[in-house]
């Protein structure tokens, strides 16, 4: 796995940070950069389920990824199982290759019989609904890309081998949008999900009003009214 810092700086031109999953230190370094580098507008993570495997996604990594304010896109392929799946669930937008499969085997694996402890019992039902989540948890059933698309775990199925490229496109798309807008929209959805609707609407409105102080909002409105594309680069480093 390449040095995450080199990889990051290479990508930061596009303001997309790729978070590597080949080793704990590199992963944590990249997450710190995603959290602190003002130029990072979107992050992406590529999970292949091969060479990485459940074992190299270590406990706590999904929590680190899930704590990021910046939107995260996950490109998935191969067998996305157990902690690898839990890491994917901590991303915001997930897409996969056509032949990707998904399973949670911790409970049913006769050798281990463990409780998934990095979000498998919490993020999974919130993302796919309780029916499929319970089925996956209790039976260990391996499910297909088509099934997770219907369940909303992924939002797009790519031709085999193309999920990485497509994830990068989506991350670049997000990176081209307003920086605070993307972060606030993510926060509104994820934090608002835990609130009664009435309070969550207050959160949304307050974030929208807070955004009034953001120069990118003014640029976006000006661009819309001038029938041109917004150019947010001019604000880089000024905040």
């Amino acid at each position: 796995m390449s040095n995450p810092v080199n990889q990051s700086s290479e990508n930061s031109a596009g303001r997309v940070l790729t978070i590597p999953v080949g080793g704990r230190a590199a992963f944590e370094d990249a997450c710190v950069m995603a959290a602190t580098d003002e130029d990072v507008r979107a992050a992406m993570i590529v999970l292949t389920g091969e060479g990485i495997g459940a074992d190299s996604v270590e406990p706590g990594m999904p929590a680190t990824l899930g704590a990021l304010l910046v939107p995260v896109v996950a490109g998935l392929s191969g067998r996305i199982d157990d902690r690898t799946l839990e890491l994917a669930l901590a991303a915001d937008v997930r897409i996969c290759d056509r032949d990707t499969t998904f399973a949670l085997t911790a409970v049913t694996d006769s050798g281990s019989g463990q409780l998934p402890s990095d979000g498998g019992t919490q993020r999974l039902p919130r993302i796919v609904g309780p029916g499929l989540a319970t089925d996956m948890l209790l039976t260990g059933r391996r499910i297909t890309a088509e099934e997770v698309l219907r369940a909303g775990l992924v939002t797009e199925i790519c031709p085999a081998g193309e999920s990485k490229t497509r994830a990068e496109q989506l991350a670049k798309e997000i990176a081209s949008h307003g920086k605070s807008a993307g972060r606030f929209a993510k926060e509104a959805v994820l934090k608002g999900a835990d609130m009664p609707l009435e309070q969550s609407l207050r959160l949304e409105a307050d974030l929208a009003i807070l955004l009034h102080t953001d120069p990118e909002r003014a640029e976006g409105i000006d661009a819309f009214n001038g029938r041109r594309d917004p150019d947010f680069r001019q604000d880089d480093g000024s905040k």
Partner: protein
Amino acid sequence: MTESTFETVTYEKRCRIAHITLNRPEVINAFNVQMRDDLSEVLDAVRWDPDVAVVLLKGSGDRGFCAGADLSEFGSAPSQSAARNARWERDVFGVLRDLTVPTVAVLHGHVIGSGVELALLCDIRVAADNAVFSMPETYYGLIAAAGGTQTLPRVLKQGRALDMLLAGRRLNASDARDVGLIQRVVKSDGLEMESERIANDLAEIDPALFGAIKIALATARDLPLADGLAHEKRLSIMLDRGVAGT
């Protein structure tokens, strides 16, 4: 039959069905301050009119239901506090959401940003097969502010909502039905007839019963299960005694 025309909205009541039509077709019914005020007046009238059994919310013109907020007026609030006060002093979105009668969003063409948000505040969404849905706010450095970041993930799955809100994914009518954003798709030329048919069916439901269902569904969303079940039981008893849903 009652008919009123405001600057940006038309209102017609026929056979206990309120037809509310966004009426700025030259800008695909972009939602501006005037429209908020007009809609607020109409909804206030509807809210207290016992003769209204169903609300249909529509957009005039061929091009679409609503192209979103009219950004030409953005930035006109004197301060952030004033903007915040205005949001809650005239909470037209809250009034629409809290109507006790059934509300149906009748959608066609462009359904963008606030257009999607208005639709999400209705109980049922029916769309023409030419409808296209998108939430492009973040592209312009904005976020949805008419409830979209909350209503969208509650209607769709969370991942799909984030995809629309963050990456700006557009959905055609058939995609929108597959993910649950809308419930029915009809041919463009059949939209009016289908929406009237739905409205006529809904008008048959006892208003007290419908009001109770709406409260029960809101409860299911926000309360722990045990409290929701207890509330459902109370609503049922109140309904039997003729005191619920009002």
